[in-house]
């Protein structure tokens, strides 16, 4: 027996409302992140991730309120990402009740930020979120064949994705959230090669994200080295239930809770 592979639903939250949710039978309001969080908790989610996709900074306070209300009702770990730029942003989210905060674009612009955050709050609560894709033809090649992107995968950051994950660990982050921008939305399965490559260079936990479409997709990601698997739309739309994913993992002899 050992630590279980975590199944993590991700909720995209815009101005305090869940983006593209569907109505499950047990939901009164599929747009309420707090209520969605409770349903996922009841279904056996091992953690929750909120991704704040709010464009305007004037509505950031809304996310803190969502985090606060969730932490009052849901007693599993909560990670919050999206728009985290400074150590004070981290502090505000932790105080609101988040357990971990994920950092993405701001760290690409200034990597030392990861060091400052992990020193101040502890490695265990700083997650480096890496939006990566295979380097497209005609662009600057990278040693791993994968590059970091920004703007939802539309722009290259000109950085090797695998090296960036390794550097993140060196700077003190406690976890890597690895999002495949190629696989994201395809429902064709995780980018197994990318997970293996990152696993080979870091020894912090790796969360695999992007591409989940059916229950059989999760075990290969774990075999490639993921410690946790994250999905958004398949859970939002009710295509897959968390319990089904866990049953499939269990069937593939992966330890789950």
């Amino acid at each position, binding site marked *: 027996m050992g630590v*279980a592979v975590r199944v993590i639903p991700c909720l995209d939250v815009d101005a305090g409302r869940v983006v593209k949710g569907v109505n499950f039978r047990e939901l009164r309001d599929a747009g309420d992140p707090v209520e969605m969080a409770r349903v996922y908790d009841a279904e056996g989610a091992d953690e929750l991730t909120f991704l704040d996709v709010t464009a305007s900074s004037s509505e950031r306070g809304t996310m803190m309120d969502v985090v606060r209300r969730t932490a009052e009702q849901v007693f599993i770990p909560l990670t919050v990402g999206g728009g985290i730029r400074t150590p004070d942003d981290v502090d505000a989210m932790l105080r609101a009740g988040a357990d971990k905060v994920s950092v993405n674009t701001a760290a690409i612009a200034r990597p030392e930020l990861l060091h400052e955050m992990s020193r101040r709050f502890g490695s265990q609560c700083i997650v480096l979120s890496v939006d990566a894709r295979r380097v497209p033809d005609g662009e600057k090649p990278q040693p791993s064949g994968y590059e970091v992107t920004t703007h939802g995968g539309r722009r290259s950051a000109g950085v090797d994705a695998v090296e960036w994950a390794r550097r993140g660990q060196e700077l003190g982050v*406690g976890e890597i959230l690895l999002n495949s921008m190629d696989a994201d939305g395809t429902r064709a399965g995780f980018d197994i090669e990318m997970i293996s490559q990152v696993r080979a260079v870091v020894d912090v936990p790796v969360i695999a994200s992007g591409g989940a479409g059916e229950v059989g997709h999760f075990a290969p990601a774990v075999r490639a080295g993921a410690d946790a698997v994250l999905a958004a739309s398949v859970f939002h739309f009710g295509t897959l239930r968390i319990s089904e994913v866990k049953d499939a993992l269990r069937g593939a002899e992966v330890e789950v809770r």
Partner: protein
Amino acid sequence: MTRIVVLDYGSGNLRSAERALERVGADVTVTSDFDAAMEADGLVVPGVGAFATCMKGLEEVRGPRIIGRRLAGGRPVLGICVGMQVLFDRGVEFGEDTQGCGEWPGTVERIKADVLPHMGWNTVTTPPGSTLFAGLDADTRFYFVHSFGVRRWELEDSPALRPPLVTWTHHGEDVVAAVENGALAATQFHPEKSGDAGATVLQNWLRDVVG
């Protein structure tokens, strides 16, 4: 209603601990006030991050003294995560050796495992007679997040004392997951983040240790 103080010394997400204790029926105050911490029916010492940072924060609110005095009077204290670790003699992190509260002998040091932090839901092995884990199945999982831990239990049994009950988990190697020692109890995992299983542990502590 049982009055619980969650000691606020600048460490981590205290809201979860507060709410989880309220959920199982406690009247909870989050404070760094010395008298309030002394007078509460039960004191919870949380903690996340580095051992040295937590110890420094704890000393600033006279935490070691509060803990020591409460225990001298048999008044319950529950340490959580780094709040458990600081109850031991010392912590060694990245070559820095920090003195702890010294309630138990032993050293908090880096765990030997392929993947660190030990992050996620793990099982525990509980000795017979445990109060904290009463009513929970053997395969129950709790949420851990730590890279450092107590790898050896160093307190020798004495015929004069009732030996503490030590619960273990396994991540790369055996690591202390909880200790029950009369008025002093502690968990390396986060009961406040361990869903219903964690609520049972907190409820057991409230009912059978704090009383």
